[in-house]
């Protein structure tokens, strides 16, 4: 039995734990064995702590045997992007800068998972400091796409997506600043959600661009993603941008909300640059919703073409400020070559940061520098207002928007590494949601002829995650793409 456990959904595992058909220790052992068998080729994990995971699994079984289980996630292993603080565990952000860092505290999302009895399982690879769309900017290792190991898994949460796709964890957490959950979820054929800005506390999430970053779930199914979001959502005194709002029971929302919905198709997301196979798969999904009785309406988000430009000004500006803390003084890499205090900054940062991080810090510093602030940063913030307005206007008319998650299926390793602009443009369809602060989910909606997954993105009103789960679940239940898994050695 153990060998088949690792591809079960978290909801199935949860039910079997509840009926005492299996133990958390069996699940965790199965996931550990699977990881040891396939991660040599997948490369999703930067590190894992087997003893800690098994101890948590045994504690969960102990609780359950005494009738004191803590909820549906009790005993379920969850992989963690290496950007979230877990007390006593390393946190590298896939950067040499934090090569030896050990977290002295738990992120709020991690604390909540522990309070729910979840088994924290491993540290997942990513683009350095979450800057990238292919996980090729990791300074630690390469992660591949489990569906085709010559292709990238997407990024920046590439490890989080690949580990779920490869059966190395039924659930994982990632972070999404411009698409870093939804894009790798689409490319690896799993479900990934970026919640509304402010729904999940960012305390203990290493900051990249503070006005855009959100933590969110990866899962095999929509129901599983809802289960994981349920555990981590909610106001936190330690994040002043976390919102005070009632959190609905997402799984009940899925049950209760059956549509039909009014769904918008933004024409700007189906223009030049969209791969024909992706277009076909997404259009088929649109037709599915129409056949379910949904009203399909054409809408326009006229400022979409500026989203990438606005994003690369705002995100790099915020990053250049956030990453100023990596100064070689208190908790980071320190250059042994430094001759004085100022030189310590220059050399520690030169040695600690990889090329993409340097590029973005330079760009962010430039757009904030004297004489350019108005032309770039202030201008971008104003266009951000217009982009957000486009979405809010569309949501006056429709319940949600249907779009492709990415312009193409997974591209090949090395294809875009020398051309940052082309890499940035691969985030075209996901960036808008971060700028507007709205939630978005990517679910599998088909495969290319070469067998690579394709993602459907559903974007919704702020704090209406329940609607997105319900809409996504309708498609999933009729298609069962989530039951397909890649063949790995």
């Amino acid at each position, binding site marked *: 039995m153990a060998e088949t456990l690792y591809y079960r959904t978290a909801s199935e595992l949860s039910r079997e734990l509840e009926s005492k058909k299996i133990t958390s220790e069996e699940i965790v052992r199965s996931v550990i064995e699977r990881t040891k068998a396939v991660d040599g080729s997948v490369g999703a994990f930067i590190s894992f702590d087997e003893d800690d995971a098994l101890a948590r699994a045994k504690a969960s079984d102990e609780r359950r045997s005494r009738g004191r289980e803590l909820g549906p996630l009790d005993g379920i292993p969850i992989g963690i992007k290496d950007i979230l603080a877990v007390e006593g565990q390393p946190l590298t952000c896939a950067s040499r800068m934090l090569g030896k860092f050990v977290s002295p505290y738990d992120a709020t999302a991690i604390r909540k998972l522990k309070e729910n009895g979840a088994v924290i399982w491993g540290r997942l690879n990513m683009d350095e400091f979450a800057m990238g769309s292919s996980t090729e900017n990791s300074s630690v290792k390469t992660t591949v796409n489990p569906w085709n190991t010559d292709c990238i898994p997407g990024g920046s949460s590439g490890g989080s997506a690949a580990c779920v796709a490869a059966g190395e964890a039924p659930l994982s957490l990632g972070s999404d600043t411009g698409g870093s959950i939804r894009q790798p979820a689409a490319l690896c054929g799993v479900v990934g959600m970026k919640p509304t800005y402010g729904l999940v506390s960012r305390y203990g999430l290493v900051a990249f661009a503070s006005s855009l970053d959100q933590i969110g779930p990866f899962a095999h199914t929509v129901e599983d993603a809802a289960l994981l979001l349920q555990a981590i959502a909610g106001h936190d005194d330690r994040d002043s*941008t976390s919102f005070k709002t009632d959190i609905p029971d997402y799984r009940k929302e899925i049950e209760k909300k059956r549509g039909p919905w009014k769904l918008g198709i933004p024409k700007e997301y189906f223009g030049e640059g969209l791969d024909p196979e992706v277009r076909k798969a997404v259009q088929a999904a649109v037709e599915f919703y129409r056949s379910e009785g949904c009203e399909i309406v054409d809408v326009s988000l006229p400022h979409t073409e500026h989203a990438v430009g606005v994003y690369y000004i705002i995100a790099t500006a915020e990053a250049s400020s956030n990453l100023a803390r990596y*100064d070689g003084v208190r*908790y980071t890499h320190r250059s042994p070559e430094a001759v004085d*205090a100022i030189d*310590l900054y220059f050399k520690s*940062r030169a040695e600690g940061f990889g090329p993409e991080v340097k590029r973005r810090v*330079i760009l962010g510093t430039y757009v904030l520098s004297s004489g350019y602030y108005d032309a770039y940063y202030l201008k971008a913030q*104003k*266009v951000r207002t217009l982009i957000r307005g486009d979405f809010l206007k569309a949501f006056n008319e429709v319940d949600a928007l249907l779009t492709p998650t990415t312009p193409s299926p997974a591209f090949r390793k090395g294809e875009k590494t020398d051309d940052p602009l082309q890499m940035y443009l691969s985030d075209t369809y996901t960036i808008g949601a971060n700028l507007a602060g709205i939630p978005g989910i990517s679910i599998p909606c088909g495969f290319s002829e070469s067998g690579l997954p394709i993602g459907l993105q559903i974007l919704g009103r702020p704090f209406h995650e329940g609607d997105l789960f319900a809409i996504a679940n309708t498609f999933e239940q009729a298609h069962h793409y989530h039951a397909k898994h890649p063949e790995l050695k």
Partner: protein
Amino acid sequence: MAKDENGIDIDYVANLARISLTDEEKERFSGQLGDVLEYIEKLNTVDVSGVEPTAHAFPLENVWREDTAEPGFSVETALQNAPASRRNMVVVPKVVE
């Protein structure tokens, strides 16, 4: 001035960012960032007159809490990741002569 004919005065900006770059990095980044800036120039076609800037997607007000002491890190915990420490302090190169 931070801009030369290629787009960015890389030495000036790298100095502001406190990152030393090799000559090879300077050349490569100048070209790549030049491409990105050229792309970003497209924003100049947008009319933003009368548009307020958005710093955060949702309106935020400052959040206050009572000024009461709460448990924090022990000295050992606070220093556990320091590259060099001595007598409960982080050791740094001499700042003043």
